[in-house]
């Protein structure tokens, strides 16, 4: 009997370790031999801990499980009150297009054998047989764009590094997933770390880079553990090292841990941090693709961008390109979070409307109250009112509505939220996390908090001042931290003016 209990951080936060322990205790009490696999999460956080049992008929799931539900799993699985049936038949799961996350939750994350048996390494093997130009075309044709938020075409970035002349080039994976409402990088690294290794290896092969770094935020100890272990196993099995899979060029990589600075998710700040410096932002140009880590040509890509590359190489760029909408090709792992009934990771083609995501997939709020606002794209993303729910999920489509998709985090708020408080928090967060290099961000954020406090006290004259300040921050900041903080602030002010006016009346 094979039993799967996720070791994903969200599952653990909901008691998966205690459930796993109960499974072992119960099996030993009955004198049964079982194989316990700590898999990744299938993404349905509302069902975690989601236990799966492998029977002759296939895998069937149970959730959300508690230790008290475990004995019945052995007694009468068919009539178990928490039985959810096979995962692939659960409607929330069935309506997804899981390409990047196909293996997450399915396999034992640290079993290279499981990985290979489920399509792993097919992409790297095909890449090794291709010429340099063919590899490059594959990435470009796929239409893959940066999933960290900026949406820059991955192929163009790689080609810049490929064509640069240097004695050393680097692949840096940005796993500093600091945006609230996002956890796709975490789930991928915890649930299928070899995919990221394979993607980075293909990136190295394509661009001529031989060293890679995964910069993981310190807030993700489980992801750090899984990636470190996976890299060790990959090296032991000749996947990484002096020759990729024993036939390719050299490529090796290591994990580096951040130290609690949000701004290090910005690529140039991340590079400074990797070099052992303060994580301050660098002016661009020079582009990191030409002068990146230690001044060498460097690919800096998000976890999801790199982890999608193996699928593209294994299944063909054209097939990937066939998914999506407009200039947003392929799939996007949406992270549905906050006050939501059915929250979790939902991978789908670009193009689903925000309303469908929030109401149909997410099932509305957990509190049962009406949805008031949805913040898309993390702390630097705009708050969307229900009147904008028709917006299809895509880079240009959200840009056209005064927002951004960012790293595809979707945070739902019910009608108890005070949007002035949210706008103030955006400025406060920017003030805490500013690297201090440029004035609009360093000083602007502090003045922003003060100005919003004046509005809260009923000072109407502060309103145009806030708008002006936001203009200055947007146009004058060096990076997205100061530059995009105006998105949540201005969207709150524009779409929810009552929350700003109500304060005024109260003061009068």
């Amino acid at each position: 009997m094979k039993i799967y209990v996720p070791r994903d951080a969200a599952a653990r936060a909901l008691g998966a370790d205690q459930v796993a322990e109960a499974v072992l205790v119960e099996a030993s009490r009955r004198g049964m031999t079982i194989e316990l696999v700590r898999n990744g999460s299938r993404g349905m956080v509302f069902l975690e801990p989601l236990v799966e049992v492998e029977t002759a008929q296939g895998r069937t799931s149970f959730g959300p499980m508690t230790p008290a539900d475990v004995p019945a799993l052995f007694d009468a699985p068919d009539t178990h009150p928490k039985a959810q049936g096979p995962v692939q038949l659960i409607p929330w799961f069935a309506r997804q297009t899981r390409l990047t996350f196909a293996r997450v939750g399915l396999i034992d994350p640290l079993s290279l054998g499981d990985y290979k048996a489920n399509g792993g390494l097919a992409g790297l093997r095909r890449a090794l047989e291709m010429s340099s130009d063919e590899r490059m075309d594959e990435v470009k044709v796929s239409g893959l764009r940066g999933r960290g938020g900026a949406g820059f075409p991955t192929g163009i970035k790689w080609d810049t590094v490929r064509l640069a002349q240097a004695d050393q080039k680097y692949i840096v994976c940005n796993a500093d997933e600091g945006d609230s409402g996002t956890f796709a990088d975490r789930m991928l690294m915890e649930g299928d770390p070899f995919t990221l290794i394979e993607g980075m290896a293909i990136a190295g092969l394509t661009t001529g880079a031989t060293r890679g770094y995964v910069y993981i935020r310190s807030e993700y100890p489980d992801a750090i553990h899984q990636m470190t272990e996976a890299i060790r196993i990959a090296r032991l099995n000749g996947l990484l090292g002096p020759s990729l899979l024993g036939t390719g060029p050299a490529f090796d990589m290591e994990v580096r841990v951040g130290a609690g600075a949000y701004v290090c998710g910005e690529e140039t700040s991340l590079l400074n941090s990797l070099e052992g410096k303060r994580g301050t932002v660098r002016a661009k140009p020079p582009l990191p693709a030409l002068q990146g880590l230690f001044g060498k040509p460097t690919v800096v890509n998000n976890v999801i961008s790199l982890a999608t590359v193996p699928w593209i190489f294994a299944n063909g760029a054209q097939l990937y390109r066939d998914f999506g909408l407009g200039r947003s090709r392929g799939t996007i792992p949406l992270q549905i979070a906050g006050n939501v009934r059915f929250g979790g990771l939902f991978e789908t083609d670009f193009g689903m409307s925000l309303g469908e995501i929030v109401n149909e997939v997410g099932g509305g709020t957990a509190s049962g109250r009406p949805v008031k606002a949805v913040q898309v794209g993390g702390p630097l993303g705009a708050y969307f009112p229900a009147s904008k729910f028709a917006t299809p999920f895509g880079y240009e489509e959200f840009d056209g509505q005064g927002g951004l998709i960012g790293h595809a985090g979707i945070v739902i708020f019910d009608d108890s939220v005070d949007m002035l408080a949210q706008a103030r928090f955006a400025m406060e967060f920017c003030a805490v996390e500013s690297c201090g290099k440029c004035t609009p961000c360093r000083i602007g954020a502090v003045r922003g908090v003060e100005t919003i406090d004046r509005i809260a006290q009923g000072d109407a004259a502060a309103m145009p001042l806030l708008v002006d300040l936001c203009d200055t921050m947007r146009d004058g900041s060096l990076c997205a931290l100061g530059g995009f903080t105006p998105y949540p602030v201005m969207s709150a002010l524009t779409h929810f003016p009552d929350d700003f006016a109500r304060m005024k009346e109260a003061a009068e």
Partner: protein
Amino acid sequence: MLDTADFSSRLSEIIAAHQLQEGPLLPILHDVQAEWGHIPEPAIPAIAQALNLGRAEVHGVVTFYHDFRATPAGTTVIKVCAAEACQAQGGRDLVQATLRAFGLRDYGTTLDGKVTVEPIYCLGLCACGPAALVGDRLIGRATAQSLKDAAQ
């Protein structure tokens, strides 16, 4: 407080373990903090000298990052998520209730040195908020009571 001979030899070991890496400063600081629970002041000139950096430069790095502490934290550290997704699930109230539960007015350490309560900006547990980290234990759908129980 710190035994000088032991301190120096352990610090030298930590530095030596990373010195040949590219960009060794952050890995060294992480290990120093893991060893002593904070970055002891005497470590700074020693690290600076080993890496051929200025003391000010090392000090600047230590103070830039939120993770590095100048003084040790309480025995148990509770990090409560203060970011948006948890706010949407009552995170602001959880922060206040947690502080109250430990008799704190603001983030910091209790007088008996047993508990430190700090904000954290996102644990990636955004679909089961509000979330917190107690020691190394993650807690989803947290309440002040569940955090207090976990801190016992």
